């Protein structure tokens, strides 16, 4: 009986070891969006190509992507080519020019091509805060009911699109 008690610390060690081992390799930067399942927040933003405030009426019908990007963001130029390919396939993408300058953004789209159905300027980053954005690039899937279905932080590529696609309905 006494001897059995001596094994308690070892047992605790094994349990903790298994617990910690299971946590290894987890992506510590992964953060689920607080907005998933909720309707897209209201906004009043100015499109890149005009000077009038617009709201939800400027958004595409049916499922679409919202892509936060900026000319100051290196990863954004990496994913740009893939966004062009998605746009060519007919995927509607709403661009949010996040904390950026309009002239630089226009030049960027001239140089690299414009994959966006519409580009809205979020110069102060207020819409970014409403969407729970922590940086650029970030991409959201909005479903046909206008609800946020998924959020991806970082570059969009073929592998990420496989996941995003599942939420486009």
């Amino acid at each position, binding site marked *: 009986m006494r001897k059995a008690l001596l094994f308690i610390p070892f047992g605790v060690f094994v349990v903790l070891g298994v617990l910690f081992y299971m946590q290894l390799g987890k992506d510590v*930067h992964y*953060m689920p969006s*607080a*907005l998933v399942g909720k309707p897209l927040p209201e906004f009043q933003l100015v499109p890149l190509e005009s000077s009038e405030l617009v709201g939800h009426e400027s958004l595409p019908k049916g499922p679409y992507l919202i892509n936060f990007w900026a000319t100051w963001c290196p990863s954004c130029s990496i994913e740009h080519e893939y966004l062009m390919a998605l746009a060519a396939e007919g995927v509607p993408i709403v661009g949010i020019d996040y904390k950026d300058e309009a002239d630089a953004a226009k030049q960027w789209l001239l140089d690299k091509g414009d994959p966006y159905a519409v580009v809205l300027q979020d110069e102060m980053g207020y819409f970014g805060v409403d969407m*729970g954005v922590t940086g650029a690039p970030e991409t959201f899937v909005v479903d046909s009911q206008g609800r946020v279905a998924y959020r991806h932080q970082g570059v969009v590529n073929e592998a990420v699109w496989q996941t995003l696609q599942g939420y486009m309905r």
Partner: protein
Amino acid sequence: MIWLRIILLTCLGLGVSLPALAAEELLHFDNPAQEQRFQVLVEELRCPKCQNQNLSDSNSTIATDLRDQVYRMVVRGDSNEQIVNYMVARYGEFVLYKPTQKPSTFLLWYGPFILLGIGAVIFVVVISLNKRKKGKA
């Protein structure tokens, strides 16, 4: 030697006072109570981009933006609860250094006390067993 000490002390002093000075320069509060609330909030809210820094410590752009947002809300007269709810609605409970009490955070809040209790029980049991042994001998 004495010079080295003076230089080190000066550096320490600068390090402490510079951020405080900068913050006071930029932000104007209607009264000291507002400033106090702002300081508490930016210390209790966690930067969503960083692993373990609060809004006041982080220099990332999003932390700066969120500090500004807290400032605007404090000056506008929003309550602490409104400000915290605003952040949680957008960034989730991740931003809370003080998590809310609910079933999933039960162990987080009371785990240490439970462990302390178990320890106390074991302590008492071992002591009383030893006493009994001594009594027999």
